[in-house]
């Protein structure tokens, strides 16, 4: 009779991830994920400088985001108007 070993893949994944976590702590990873709290994370709050290429990319992305915003407002206004007519 053939014996079939059935292991829940969730347990395997959990064991693997916990092993990674423990290995990371053992290698000193816990202390390396936090920066000095008195220094503000400038990337997170949008205060960062870029070179010329990065600045151009920034202006292009800013324009795209603004266009998407206007596009969404237009769609919503159109739907509201249609709902009012119906």
């Amino acid at each position, binding site marked *: 009779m053939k014996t079939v070993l059935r292991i829940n893949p*969730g347990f395997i994944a959990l064991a693997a991830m916990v092993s990674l976590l423990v*290995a990371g702590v053992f290698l000193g990873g816990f202390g390396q994920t936090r920066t000095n709290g*008195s220094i503000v994370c*400038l990337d997170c709050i949008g205060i960062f400088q870029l070179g010329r290429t990065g600045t151009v990319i920034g202006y292009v992305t800013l324009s795209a985001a603004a266009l998407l915003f206007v596009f969404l407002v237009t769609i919503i206004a159109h739907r509201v108007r249609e709902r009012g007519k119906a």
Partner: protein
Amino acid sequence: MRARRYTLVAATIVANPWFFYLKSRMLYSGKAKGICFPGMNCYACPLAMYSCPIGALQHSLAIRSAGAMLYVVGTIGAVGALLGRIPCGWICPFGLLQDLLYKIPLPKLRLPGWAGYFKYASLGILAVLLPLLVRVHWFSRLCPVGTLEGGIPLQVLPPSGVTRSILEPGVFFWLKITILAFFLLWMTVTKRPFCRTACPLGAILSLFNPISLYRLEVDRGSCTKCGRCREVCPVDINVYDNPNALECVRCLECRDACPSASVTSGFRPLRRPEPAA
């Protein structure tokens, strides 16, 4: 589901308990900031005591620290392997914001299914590849959570010891504001758009949905495919098609709404077909 709403609010407070900042203007810099909070809560938030897992991931890649990478990936992965995307539905403060904004009575827009792939690009390119290659936290630079929880509050209440000139908003601050404005507006017309199209944490946790120990199940015998589950679903999926879909945020609204009680959930093994006798 009221329990979920209360849990989301409580989790937001648990993630941001450093009210001491309001008096002292001193950011928390203790050891707890090494703990990755299992939701999108910005490290730069003046009230935050824990770190954002995606910010920590980018930082570990940027400094090329194997220990930090293993710790962050292991933390996120352990949560995912155990619970799947439950943090998205029950813990994430930004998820709570999206659920609340969707209640505003405006015309609603449905998202096509393929839009969900964008979050994997966000994870792979902005949160992994770019930090690894150019050592810059590119997802953090664009993240609307950071703008809402860190960028704006720190402009209004700057920390002590940091001069105003350092915090002078430039073009990229306004870029982040525009991205935030776009997402806030989108959240009023589409269910959880950030979770479905941009969130790298949701992208990682979603990979564990099919195999996590906590699972949903649908009794095909009693399910009438009435569609009630999709109506209440915050990410607009047909639960009866695949109860453990990658998009599912495990809010369990479908379980409570199902008129035939066909949807159940809990810690259970993945069903495998029985071997032939």
